[in-house]
């Protein structure tokens, strides 16, 4: 027994030495960016796309550098869950010693990592978690450029009631932090305005067939809007099921699907006619006419031969914002943190950035409304 024990001990020692030896040697004039993305497990969907956006931005920036600085990146797999995320964060901080960290995507993971970055005094720039708790109460070292669930929900409810004249709603949401949170916000605000929520139907991430849910919605009577909060895979099935049941416009009914957490460009091509009339908030508007956006789309297509999604765009913006802070004088964790907090009217491809005192970006031009036209293309509704 002792032989085995000794061998294991030595093995442990050896591997730890190896790990320490991999620490990057700090080079002068390099800004080190740490990235906490889900690279394995079901959330790896996000990590892969985030990486693409990051790489594009770094490629562009490192051609000339910013203020004499170049950018180095280190990715760590946070798996979209609290424990792996905290381990990844600690490993990143101890071994890579980043000046700034971007990530995570999932609210649970981000919330778990926040105390760690606060203690290590490294700024965390987030663009994927919608839970309000990230910035309320938040902490001085965590920043979020994405509109949170309250910002989106209040706005959506208002627009549903006033612009779409909706008086009844049926909520469909995935049983996760983000799904439940977003649905609750919509419900509170919609009912405050005078609307009625006829049903709140939450489902697990393992539900494949939505015909039963669609049937239940069909039996509720006249529904004006169906706020849907789920990811692409299940979102596709829901849209198709609702159309098959004849509830939504795509199926000959009158209800409009609205909302959603993330449905990228290309959803319509997969959903087909069922997606007709879908109105949703997206974080990236590919029909945006600003030069900045057009250049981004062109560069992305040239590098990856695909259209960018909001995940690519968010990651791109995070890096570009950091570069902007460096241009304004940021060069280490503390000055980068201060530079982020002082950001005023930064222009990103997803919208502008202006942080309030809880480090939440309050610019509503990051909330883009899109409607699906009969020819399956998007038209941007200028509601913000």
């Amino acid at each position, binding site marked *: 027994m002792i032989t085995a024990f000794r061998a294991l001990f030595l093995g442990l020692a050896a591997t730890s030495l190896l790990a320490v030896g991999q620490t990057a040697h700090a080079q002068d004039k390099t800004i080190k960016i740490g990235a906490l993305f889900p690279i*394995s*497990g*079901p*959330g*790896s*969907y996000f990590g*892969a796309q985030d990486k693409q956006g990051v790489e594009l931005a770094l490629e562009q920036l490192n051609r000339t550098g910013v203020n004499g600085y170049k950018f180095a990146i280190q990715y760590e797999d946070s798996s979209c869950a609290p424990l792996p995320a905290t381990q990844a964060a600690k490993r990143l901080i101890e071994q890579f010693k980043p000046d700034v960290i971007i990530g995570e995507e999932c609210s649970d993971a981000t919330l778990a990592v926040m105390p760690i970055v606060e203690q290590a005094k490294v700024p965390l720039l987030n663009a994927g978690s919608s839970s309000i708790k990230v910035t309320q109460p938040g902490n001085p070292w965590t920043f979020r450029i994405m509109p949170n669930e309250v910002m989106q929900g209040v706005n959506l409810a208002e627009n549903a009631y006033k612009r779409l004249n909706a008086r009844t709603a049926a909520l469909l949401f995935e*049983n996760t932090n983000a799904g439940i949170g977003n649905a609750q916000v919509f419900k509170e605000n919609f009912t405050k305005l005078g609307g009625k929520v006829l049903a709140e*139907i*939450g*489902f*697990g991430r*393992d*539900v*494949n*067939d939505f*015909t*039963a*849910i669609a*049937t*239940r919605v*069909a*039996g509720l009577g006249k529904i004006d809007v169906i706020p849907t909060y789920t990811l*692409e*895979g*299940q979102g*596709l*099935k829901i849209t*198709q099921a609702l159309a*098959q*049941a*004849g509830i939504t416009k795509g199926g000959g009914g009158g209800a409009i699907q609205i909302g959603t957490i993330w449905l990228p460009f290309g959803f319509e091509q*997969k959903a*087909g*006619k*069922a997606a007709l009339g879908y109105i949703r908030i997206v974080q990236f508007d590919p029909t945006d006419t600003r030069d900045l956006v057009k250049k981004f789309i062109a560069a992305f297509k040239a590098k990856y031969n695909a259209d960018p999604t909001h995940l690519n765009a968010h990651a791109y913006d995070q890096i570009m914002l950091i570069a902007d802070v460096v241009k304004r004088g940021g060069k280490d964790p503390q000055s980068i943190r201060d530079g982020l907090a002082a950001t005023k009217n930064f222009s990103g491809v997803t919208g502008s950035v202006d942080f309030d005192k809880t480090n939440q970006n309050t610019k509503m031009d990051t909330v883009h409304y899109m409607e699906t036209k009969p020819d399956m293309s998007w038209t941007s509704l200028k509601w913000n």
Partner: protein
Amino acid sequence: MTVTIVLQQAINGVVLGSLYVLVALGLTLIYGVLVQINFAHADFVTLGAFAAYFFMHLVGASYILSIGVAFSVGAILGWMINASIFTPLRRKGNELLPLIATIGVSVMMQNLMLAWFGPIPYAFETQYSNQVVRFAGIFVSWQNVIIIIVSSMTIALLYAFMKFTFLGKALRAVSQDHETAGLMGINQNQLIMLTFVIASALAGMAGAMLAPVLVLTPFAGTSVIVKAFAIVIIGGFGNVEGTILAGLIVGLIESYTTQFLDPGLIDIVVFALLLLMLAIRPTGLISERREENV
């Protein structure tokens, strides 16, 4: 609450049930003859789905042909798993080790598929998946109709095979009483291999049929497998009729729980039913086996 809604949910339940039966059939067949659980069964289904998808999209073949490809992929996988895991372990006589080995295989397969195919859901559309049949205010998609038809045909064929052919009777003999069957001169090993191959081929085929219905990621199998186990036990391990009945019941539970309660409660209801069955009637709804010391 209209009659239409209740009827519609009944149909939804039957469709869901057929879905589950397609997956559970292979499991129950294997158990009946081998008295072994293959935890990787659902991953065969997933792999079958991917095989069909890529065959259709890379080669441009028809959907029907891709079902055949998935069937074959399943068969090959079944052969490999039986040869490499169940046969050597059966000689050692431990009944739980093979189950654990298949858990390992399942983890490996899921993550290999994740590495090869990525996590983004694939949209598998066939010409049937979005067209809908409507009658008397009820609707069913053509894909689901096909699932029910193929399900029923497969079950009928399987039934006939088991009842009327020599091989089928031999299979039933082995599943009812290993030792005596051996005494009767039935070559157990070949029979077991045959069962495995058929069951896994069925799984692959099920994958191809379910692909348009499932959210197609490498983890698609896991969403179905645990319920499939529940169905196999509720129906009676090794019993085809029981599996069909149990599958339909679970499908109906799912649609009615969604209608009247909450989709989140589905698993609780199904597994509470499972535990109930184990408590009062562990051999399942219908059992033609001898009283087994469970």
